[in-house]
């Protein structure tokens, strides 16, 4: 065991936990004030709900003893056998439980990302149930496939450094299913649904960015060159993503917006996530630009197709997830990460194919299962609040609170 690596992953775990707090604010600032608390609560309570799920069966399903490459067994239920001795495969220089809690924070933020799609109109109870089911039946398997010891996507050679498959693409696709199934908010497209507190959104974006260093650099699982290069790639892609997005805004609607800058940064950070440990700074800069442009067009799609992905989870994490896995197949280089593989631009077109397989599989599996889970919960309890409650807002109707009493 190494004290430097252990410190690194412990702090990174704390940083990733902070991301979900940042996400709560990032999202809450974009909704109307009558839904501010309900939106924060969806992210906040997921930290609690999914952590419990994770220590009971989640970690075991995702990282436990492999079964036919598709799922981890329940041998580690309740962390049985997950002790302090380093795991021989996952992270050899830190306590196993430290690896477990670091991964826990990833499992937490993923369903929280989805909440942006059904913001301002989902009932609290059914939301809890859906999130629990989704974590169990979508996140855990996907995490096993790509990161679990023996997972078939990993064995296939798919490159996903920090969460293109299990985190961004999966949440983006689930978001699409949710947006379609729940339908539009009253007033979508007709009334002004303006963000109620953009400084809060910018603060959230800042905390997300800060935490993302733990998310991506920490995925190196050791404090060395790889962590360093992932850190640099992450930061650079976030910056070029922000610049590219506001450039697009400037061309299309005439002005660079603050929300655009934040959105572009998140787009860049999300897109570089699977690539972070496989690419150099200049590749990362290009990836960020592609992310800013691609995700900007992605959120525009919403207005074209007319589904109400309220806070643009599809446009940013869905599009970003696809882009990220693709560019990893393009820019990956063993010169940066000997443990990885070369991408198309480094003479290995096969890798791009493998990445496409991962994209396709993830999208299909996630969409189908997410849709089914949403349908089931909807039939059983009803996902959507009544129109009257939607008008009064989630804060009063779901939680009997109001966000502001200035």
């Amino acid at each position, binding site marked *: 065991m190494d004290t430097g690596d252990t410190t690194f992953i412990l702090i990174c775990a704390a940083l990733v936990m902070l991301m979900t707090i940042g996400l709560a604010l990032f999202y809450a600032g974009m909704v109307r004030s009558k839904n501010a608390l309900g939106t924060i609560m969806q992210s906040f309570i997921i930290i609690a709900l999914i952590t419990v799920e994770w220590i009971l069966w989640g970690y075991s399903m995702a990282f436990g003893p492999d079964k036919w490459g598709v799922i981890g067994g329940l041998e580690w239920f309740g962390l049985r056998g997950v002790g302090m001795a380093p795991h021989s495969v996952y992270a050899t220089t830190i306590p196993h439980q430290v690896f477990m809690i670091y991964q826990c924070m990833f499992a937490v933020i993923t369903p929280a990302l989805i909440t942006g799609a059904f913001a301002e109109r989902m009932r609290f109870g059914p939301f809890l149930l859906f999130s629990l089911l989704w974590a169990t039946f979508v996140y855990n398997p996907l995490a096993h496939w790509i990161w679990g010891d023996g997972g078939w996507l990993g064995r296939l050679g798919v490159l996903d450094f920090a969460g293109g498959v299990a985190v961004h693409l999966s949440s983006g696709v689930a978001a699409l299913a949710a947006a379609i199934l729940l339908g539009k908010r009253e007033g979508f497209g007709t*009334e002004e649904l303006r963000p109620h507190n953009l400084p809060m959104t910018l603060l959230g974006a800042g905390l997300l960015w800060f935490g993302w260093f733990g998310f991506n650099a920490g995925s190196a699982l050791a404090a060395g060159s790889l962590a360093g290069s992932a850190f640099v790639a992450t930061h650079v892609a976030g910056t070029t993503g922000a610049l590219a997005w506001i450039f697009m805004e400037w061309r299309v609607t005439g002005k660079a917006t603050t929300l655009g800058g934040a959105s572009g940064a998140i787009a860049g950070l999300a897109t570089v996530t699977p690539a972070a440990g496989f690419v150099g700074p200049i590749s990362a800069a290009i990836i960020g630009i592609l992310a800013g442009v691609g995700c900007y067009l992605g959120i525009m799609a919403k207005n074209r197709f007319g589904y109400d992905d309220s806070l643009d989870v599809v446009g940013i994490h869905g599009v970003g997830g696809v882009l990220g896995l693709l560019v990893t197949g393009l820019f990956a280089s063993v010169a940066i990460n000997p443990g990885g593989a070369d991408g198309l631009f480094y003479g290995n077109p096969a890798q791009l194919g493998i990445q496409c397989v991962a994209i396709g599989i993830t999208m299909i599996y996630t969409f189908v299962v997410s849709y089914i889970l949403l349908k089931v919960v909807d039939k059983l309890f009803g996902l959507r609040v009544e129109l009257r409650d939607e*008008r009064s807002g989630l804060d*009063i109707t779901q939680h*009997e*609170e109001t966000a502001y009493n200035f």
Partner: protein
Amino acid sequence: MKKIEAIIKPFRVDDVKKGLSNLGIKGMTVSEVRGFGRQRGHKEVYRGAEYQVDFVAKIKIEIVLEASMVPDAMKVIQDQARTGEIGDGKIFVIPVEQAVRIRTGESGKEAL
């Protein structure tokens, strides 16, 4: 001249405004108010302490216009603001003796 004061539900403002513009009404002033009436408020709970909040968020629209336009304006407001549910609000008419446009000094109907 008269002043119409209408207390309505916030989410009806856009439609009421559109309706009045179509009538040719060129100006109005709105403000956020809280109303107490037959419509019940809601309960709030903070750390176990329960509060009954009687006041409901409403929007107040003020329009100064010629007496002759009052009936039409009132009709438009009623049509656009009505949801049929309790709490739709009220319309009051108050006499106005003078009106002046600050920019030009015009007064009377020219000021509106």
